[in-house]
C-alpha cells in the first residue's frame, strides 16, 4: 500500500517532517493534492530561479472570468515534497480534481467551499469547546512546537482521523477523494511498486484515502466530470495576498511569522522563534522612532511563556506572543505596535518567477476585453480618438451592444485607475454633457509591462481596479481625496468600491473640520448624483451622505470663514459648489444654508471676501431684501471699515450675478461715495483691489458700469464710456507700474 502523509497547508512543522518522511521511504512517485491537469507547472515551480511565494492560477477562457488559486510558500509541505522529488529524481504529480473541473463546478454555482466545508467548521468549534483553544492555538501548541519525528507523524494521523470522525463529508469532498483514489489506483496499476508511492494530502483527506480502496462507485462518480475551457499559469504571489485570503488551506494568517518558525526549525533552534519575533517587533519600533528596550523584549518573552504555560502549551504561540507584545512593547495598546505586527507577521515578501513562465490572466483579460469591446483596432502605436455615447443604444437588440460605449468607458477608466497607459481622456469642448466622453487611445510596449505589474493586484481588470482603489481608500485620510476616489470608482463602474468609498467618505466626514474639504466633496458627490442612472450604478446612498456633509459644512462654515485671503478663496469655491449642489438637489436643506449665509453676510469677523460672496449668493437667490442689501453696502463701504476690507468685500459681492449688480444704481452711488472719500494713502490698496475685481468683467459690462458711474457723477454716458474704454496713457501706465511694487499685505 502506498504511504500516506496528511499535512496542514502552510505548516512549517509539516513541511519539515514531510522531507524527513520522503527521505526515509524514498518513493519513486509522489502524489500531491493539487489540480491533476496542471502537473506540468511543478517543474517551473521547483526551478532554482523561482522565488516563493508563488501561485498556480487557473482561469476560464471565456468571460466572466473565474479563477482558482493554489498558492505556495517556502514552508508549504506540498512545495517541500515537490522540491524533494525534483532533487531526488522521483516522479511528482498532482492527484486532485483537474482545475477545469473545479472551474466548471463554480460555473454551475455549486457552492465552492472546498477550502472550508461546513463539516470542518463545526468540528473546529467542537474542538474549541473541548480544548478551550481556538483551532490555530490548538495546532500551534500541539504540533508546531513538536520536535520529534515519530510523535509528530502519529499525532497528525490521529488529528486527521478525529477531525474526520466529527465532521460530515460534503459531496464536493466525496468527489475529490473518489478522484484521488482513482489517481492512486491508476498509479499502482501502472507498475510502480505501491510501497514506493507517497501521497501527500490534507490531513482530513488522508484518513478517507487510506482506509478506502478504489471502488466501482468511485469509478462511476469520476467517469464524467464537468469541464470548462481553462488556462493556467504560474504567478508571483505576495505574503500580503496570502494573508488576505483567509480560510483553511487557501492562505496563511501570518506568513511572516510562519517563515520565522520555518527558518528556526531548519536551523535546529526552533525555541528561538519567539525571541526572534519579539526582537523583530522591537527593531521595527526603533527604526520608526519609537522606543523599545531590550528589557521590554525580555519581559514580553517571559510573559508569553507564562501565558502559554497557563493554557498548556510548551512554547508560546502567535496569540501569546502578540498579547505579550501588546502588554510590554505596546504599553497596553495594540495600536502602538500594529504596524510592527503587520510587518513581522505578514511581511512584504513578493515572489518572482523565471522569465517566460508568466502569462498572467490580467493580460488575457485585457486582450479579451479589447475583442469584446471592439477596441482591437486601437491596439497600435499611433494614437486615435474615440468618442463615446454612454446612453443606451435603443436601435440594437442585445444588451451587450446597447451598452457597448458605456462598457468601453468603464474599461478605459479602470485601466486608468490601474495606472495602465492606454487611453487618455480628453476634454470635450462644446458642452459638459454627462453622457459623452472623448478618449485618445494609444498602445505602447509600456502598456504591456504595466499590465503585468498590475497583475499582482488581481486576476481581471475589474478585480484589479477594485483592489487598487480599495487600497488607496485605506491609505488616504483626506476627505477630498476619498471623494475623488469615490468618483473614480463611480466612473469605473465598480459598485462595490463605490459602496466602500461612500462609507469611507462618511467616516472621514465626521472628523473633517475643513469646510473647504467638505464643500469640495459635496461638489464631487453632486456631480455623481447628476450622472443619474446613466452609468447604471445606484446613487441612492449618496443623498444621505450629502445631507450629512451638508449639515457638517453648514456647522463648520461660520468658524472657518474667519480666515486669511488664501483660505477665503478656497471657501468661496466651496460655497459656490455647495450652492450649486443645493440648487440641483431638493434633498438638501436650502433654509439651513440660507441662514448660515445670512449670518456670514452680516458678520464683521468673517473674511470680507466670503461675506461679500455670501451676500451675492443670497442676492442671486432673492433671499435678501433690498433694504438689508443697501444697509450692508453702506456699512461695508463706510468710513468705519478699513478701506482694504471694503474693497475685498466688494470683490466677493461681484463674483456672482454681475448683471443684477450693475442694474442697481444705488450700489454704484455707494461705491462712488466710498472711493471719493478716500485719501491718497487709502486709495492705493483700494485701487489694487478694485482693479482686480473689474478685470474679470467683460468690456460690455465695464461700459455699463461706466454708464452707471457717469450717471452718479453727472457726466454724459458717452464721455464716461469713452473714458473707461480708452487706451491707457503713458502717464497712467507709469502710475499702474508703480502699483506693482505695492505691498499687498493681507489683501
Amino acid at each position, binding site marked *: 500500500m502506498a504511504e500516506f502523509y496528511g499535512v496542514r497547508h502552510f505548516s512549517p512543522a509539516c513541511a519539515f517532517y514531510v522531507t524527513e518522511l520522503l527521505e526515509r521511504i524514498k518513493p519513486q512517485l509522489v502524489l500531491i493534492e493539487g489540480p491533476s491537469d496542471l502537473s506540468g507547472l511543478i517543474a517551473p515551480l521547483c526551478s532554482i530561479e523561482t522565488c516563493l511565494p508563488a501561485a498556480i492560477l487557473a482561469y476560464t477562457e471565456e468571460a466572466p472570468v473565474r479563477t482558482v488559486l493554489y498558492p505556495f510558500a517556502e514552508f508549504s509541505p506540498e512545495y517541500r515534497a515537490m522540491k524533494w522529488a525534483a532533487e531526488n529524481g522521483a516522479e511528482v504529480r498532482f492527484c486532485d480534481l483537474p482545475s477545469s473541473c473545479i472551474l466548471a463546478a463554480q460555473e454551475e454555482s455549486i457552492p465552492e467551499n472546498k477550502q472550508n466545508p461546513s463539516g470542518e467548521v463545526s468540528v473546529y468549534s467542537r474542538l474549541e469547546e473541548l480544548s478551550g483553544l481556538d483551532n490555530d492555538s490548538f495546532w500551534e501548541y500541539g504540533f508546531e512546537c513538536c520536535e520529534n519525528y515519530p510523535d509528530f507523524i502519529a499525532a497528525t494521523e490521529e488529528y486527521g482521523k478525529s477531525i474526520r470522525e466529527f465532521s460530515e463529508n460534503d459531496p464536493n469532498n466525496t468527489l475529490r477523494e473518489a478522484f484521488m483514489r482513482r489517481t492512486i489506483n491508476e498509479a499502482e496499476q501502472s507498475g510502480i511498486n505501491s510501497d514506493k508511492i507517497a501521497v501527500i494530502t490534507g490531513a482530513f483527506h488522508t484518513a478517507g484515502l487510506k482506509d478506502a480502496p478504489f471502488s466501482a462507485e468511485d469509478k462511476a462518480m469520476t467517469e464524467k466530470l464537468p469541464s470548462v475551457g481553462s488556462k493556467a499559469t504560474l504567478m508571483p504571489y505576495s505574503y500580503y495576498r496570502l494573508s488576505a485570503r483567509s480560510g483553511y488551506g487557501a492562505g496563511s494568517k501570518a506568513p511572516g511569522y510562519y517563515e520565522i518558525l520555518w527558518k528556526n526549525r531548519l536551523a535546529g533552534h526552533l525555541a528561538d522563534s519567539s525571541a526572534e519575533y519579539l526582537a523583530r517587533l522591537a527593531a521595527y519600533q526603533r527604526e520608526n522612532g519609537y522606543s523599545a528596550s531590550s528589557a521590554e523584549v525580555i519581559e514580553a518573552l517571559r510573559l508569553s511563556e507564562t501565558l502559554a504555560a497557563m493554557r498548556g502549551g510548551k512554547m508560546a504561540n502567535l496569540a501569546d506572543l502578540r498579547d505579550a507584545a501588546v*502588554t510590554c512593547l505596546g*504599553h*497596553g495598546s495594540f495600536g502602538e505596535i500594529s504596524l510592527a505586527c503587520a510587518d513581522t507577521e505578514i511581511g512584504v515578501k513578493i515572489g518572482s518567477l523565471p522569465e517566460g513562465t508568466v502569462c498572467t490572466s490580467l493580460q488575457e483579460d485585457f486582450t479579451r476585453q479589447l475583442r469584446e469591446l471592439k477596441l482591437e483596432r486601437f491596439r497600435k502605436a499611433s494614437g486615435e480618438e474615440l468618442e463615446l455615447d454612454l446612453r443606451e443604444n435603443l436601435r440594437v437588440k442585445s444588451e451587450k451592444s446597447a451598452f457597448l460605449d458605456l462598457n468601453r468607458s468603464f474599461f478605459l477608466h479602470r485601466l486608468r485607475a490601474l495606472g495602465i497607459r492606454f487611453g487618455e481622456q480628453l476634454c470635450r469642448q462644446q458642452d459638459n454633457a454627462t453622457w459623452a466622453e472623448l478618449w485618445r487611445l494609444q498602445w505602447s510596449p509600456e502598456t504591456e509591462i504595466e499590465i503585468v505589474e498590475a497583475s499582482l493586484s488581481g486576476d481581471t481588470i475589474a478585480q484589479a481596479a477594485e483592489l487598487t482603489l480599495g487600497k488607496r481608500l485605506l491609505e488616504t485620510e483626506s476627505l477630498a481625496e476619498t471623494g475623488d476616489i469615490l468618483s473614480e470608482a463611480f466612473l469605473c463602474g465598480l459598485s462595490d468600491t463605490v459602496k466602500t468609498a461612500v*462609507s469611507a467618505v462618511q467616516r472621514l466626514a*465626521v472628523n473633517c473640520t475643513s469646510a473647504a474639504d467638505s464643500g469640495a466633496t459635496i461638489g464631487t458627490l453632486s456631480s455623481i448624483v447628476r450622472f443619474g442612472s446613466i452609468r447604471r450604478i445606484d446613487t441612492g446612498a449618496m443623498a444621505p451622505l450629502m445631507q*450629512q456633509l451638508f*449639515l*457638517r459644512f453648514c456647522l463648520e462654515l461660520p468658524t472657518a470663514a474667519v480666515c486669511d485671503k488664501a483660505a477665503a478663496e478656497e471657501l468661496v469655491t466651496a460655497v459656490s459648489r455647495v450652492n450649486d449642489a443645493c440648487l440641483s438637489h431638493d434633498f438638501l436643506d436650502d433654509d439651513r444654508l440660507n441662514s448660515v449665509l445670512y449670518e456670514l453676510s452680516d458678520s464683521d469677523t468673517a473674511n470680507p471676501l466670503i461675506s461679500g460672496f455670501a451676500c451675492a449668493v443670497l442676492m442671486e437667490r432673492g433671499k435678501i431684501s433690498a433694504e438689508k442689501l443697501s444697509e450692508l453696502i453702506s456699512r461695508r463701504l463706510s468710513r468705519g471699515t478699513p478701506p482694504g476690507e471694503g474693497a475685498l468685500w466688494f470683490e466677493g459681492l461681484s463674483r456672482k450675478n454681475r448683471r443684477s449688480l450693475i442694474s442697481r444704481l444705488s450700489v454704484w452711488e455707494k461705491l462712488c461715495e466710498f472711493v471719493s472719500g478716500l485719501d491718497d494713502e487709502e486709495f492705493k490698496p483700494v485701487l489694487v483691489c478694485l482693479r482686480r475685481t473689474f478685470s474679470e468683467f467683460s468690456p460690455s459690462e465695464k461700459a455699463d458700469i461706466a454708464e452707471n458711474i457717469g450717471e452718479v457723477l453727472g457726466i454724459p454716458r458717452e464721455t464716461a464710456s469713452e473714458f473707461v474704454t480708452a487706451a491707457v496713457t503713458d502717464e497712467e501706465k507709469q502710475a499702474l507700474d508703480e502699483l506693482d511694487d505695492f505691498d499687498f499685505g493681507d489683501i
Partner: protein
Amino acid sequence: MSEEVLRLPAEELYREELEALIAAEKNPVPVGWRMSPRSVLTYIMGGKVGGKTITPKYMGDKRIVEICIATLVTDRALLLIGEPGTAKSWLSEHLTAAINGNSSRVIQGTAGTTEEQIRYSWNYAMLLAHGPSFDSLVKSPVYTAMEDGAIARIEEISRCASEVQDALISILSEKRITIPELSEEVAARKGFSIIATANTRDKGVNEMSSALKRRFNIVVLPAPSDMETEINIVSTRVAQLAEGFRINAELPDRTAVERVVTIFRELRGGKTLDGQIKLKPTSGVLSAAEAISLLVNSMALAGSFGSGKITDSDLAAALQGAVVKDDAKDKAAWTEYLENVMRKRGREYAGLYAECRERNE
C-alpha cells in the same frame, strides 16, 4: 456584622467560592499564592468547581484576565488602564482576593498622597518617647505586602504627584525598602507585587514617567464589548439602586434602557451599531456607569415631579446633560447625532428625537 457593613470586601463576600476553589486545587500553586493561576482565572471568569458554581466577577474578554494573571505570576507589576467605569478597581480587588485572600492592602492615589504613604511613616509619640525603632514605624500597605509576600493595590496612580510615583520605581526594581533611620533594609518575600489602576481620562494630570511605566505590564480594559452585556449590567444595577434609594417610580422598561445604551455605545464608539455611519465622539465618558446614573436620575425626576413613569422628555433632559458637557463642540456632535442618526431611526425614536432636538436648540 456583615448586616451593618455597607460594603464587604471581595474575600468576605465570596468566601465560599474561594474555599471551594482552594479545596479542589490540582495545579501547582506559585509561592505566596493561595491557588493556582488557573483557579484564579476560574474565580474571575466563573465556572464550576467540585459541584459549586463560581459566579463570573468580570464580564468581558477572558484573554485580558489571563494576561493579568500571567503578569502577576512573572512577578511583574500590573497596571490596569481604562476609561472610568470599566471595572479596573473591581478586577484588581478580586485578583488580590483570589491570590492572597486579602484585598485590603490599598493605597488610594490622590493629589495629596505622600511618599510616606507609599513607604512608611513614623508614630511620632513613639518616636519621641523611644527613638527610632521598628516599633515606632507605621508601615504602609506596600510595606506589609513586601513583608508578607503579597500583592498591594494602588488606585488611580496617575493622580499621585510624580515624586510619589517615583518612590515606587525603586520598590519595583529593587524589591526592597531601605530605612536609613534604622540602617535597615526590608526585602520583599516571594509573591510580592503591585496592581495599580489608572484612568485614561486623567492622562496628563500627572503623566507617568516612562521609567515607572517600564516596570509595569500594562493592560487596557475595554468598555463592555457587546450590547446585550451592557444592557444587562445597566438594568441590573438600576434595579438594585432604585430599591436602595426607594425611588417612587417604575423601573425603566427594556426599550428605554436599550435606547440609552444604544445612544451611549454609538457616541462612545464613534459609529452606529451597524457600523454604517461614523460619528463624532463627545467629551463625556458615557460609560455604563453613567448610563446607570442617568436612568436612576430620570426615575427620580419622574417619581418626584412626574407621573412615576419615565417619559421621553425626562430621558431627553438627562441625555442632554450627559452628552453635552463641554461647550459648542459637544453640542455640534449631539446635533449631528440627532440629525444624522436618530431622526432616521423612524417612528420609535420620533418622540425622543423631537424632545432632544427641542432641548438642544
